């Protein structure tokens, strides 16, 4: 059962425009949501997170929005740059007996067209 879903396997965006990556989840017990970026032959790197008690978090060109009623989050990248071309994973955090586990989505490959 996929608790975290990224329904778009790929996305192409013109340089300078906005990139919007989407993620849906099913478990209402998740308390943090995170976005990771991954280049080929490298490990994922942490981008931005949002607490389940917030609806927006911003860090430079990256903004994450959370809609708890719809169980949906999105990552906005403005303006998109060629170096943003990568695979983006959303992840959700849940605590069990004081310990944390991250569940990842399947990823979206973002291509920025110069």
């Amino acid at each position, binding site marked *: 059962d996929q608790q975290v879903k990224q329904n778009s396997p790929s996305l192409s965006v013109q340089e300078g425009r906005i990139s919007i990556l989407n993620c849906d989840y099913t478990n209402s017990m998740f308390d943090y949501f995170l976005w990771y970026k991954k280049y080929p*032959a490298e*490990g994922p790197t*942490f981008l931005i*997170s949002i607490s389940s008690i917030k609806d927006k978090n911003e860090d430079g060109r990256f903004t994450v929005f959370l809609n708890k009623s719809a169980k949906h989050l999105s990552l906005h990248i403005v303006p998109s740059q060629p170096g943003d071309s990568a695979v983006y994973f959303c992840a959700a955090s849940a605590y069990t007996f004081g310990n944390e*586990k*991250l569940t990842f989505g399947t*990823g979206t490959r973002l291509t920025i067209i110069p």
Partner: protein
Amino acid sequence: DVKVTQSSRYLVKRTGEKVFLECVQDMDHENMFWYRQDPGLGLRLIYFSYDVKMKEKGDIPEGYSVSREKKERFSLILESASTNQTSMYLCASSLYLGQPTSHYGYTFGSGTRLTVV
């Protein structure tokens, strides 16, 4: 900066071999994790450990075991490698935060691409 080092970038092993994937972190993190990444399936958790000598099964533990004899080192073991274990393996570590007031994610290694022939 936290560094998570995986001993091999690429490995080719034969079916039936016993395979060890090693991971070392240098920032005294309590938590360590092994994931595998496959196209269309994302990152799936194999095993994790919250302390020395502790281990917990993740979502896909079958065919794998782990060892954590020292805090900084977490090994993934394929007891008898099979072709369906061909994958990218990613190790990660994190601090124990209890219930955090903010979240800075896990730190991942660069991955080991394992091919079983």
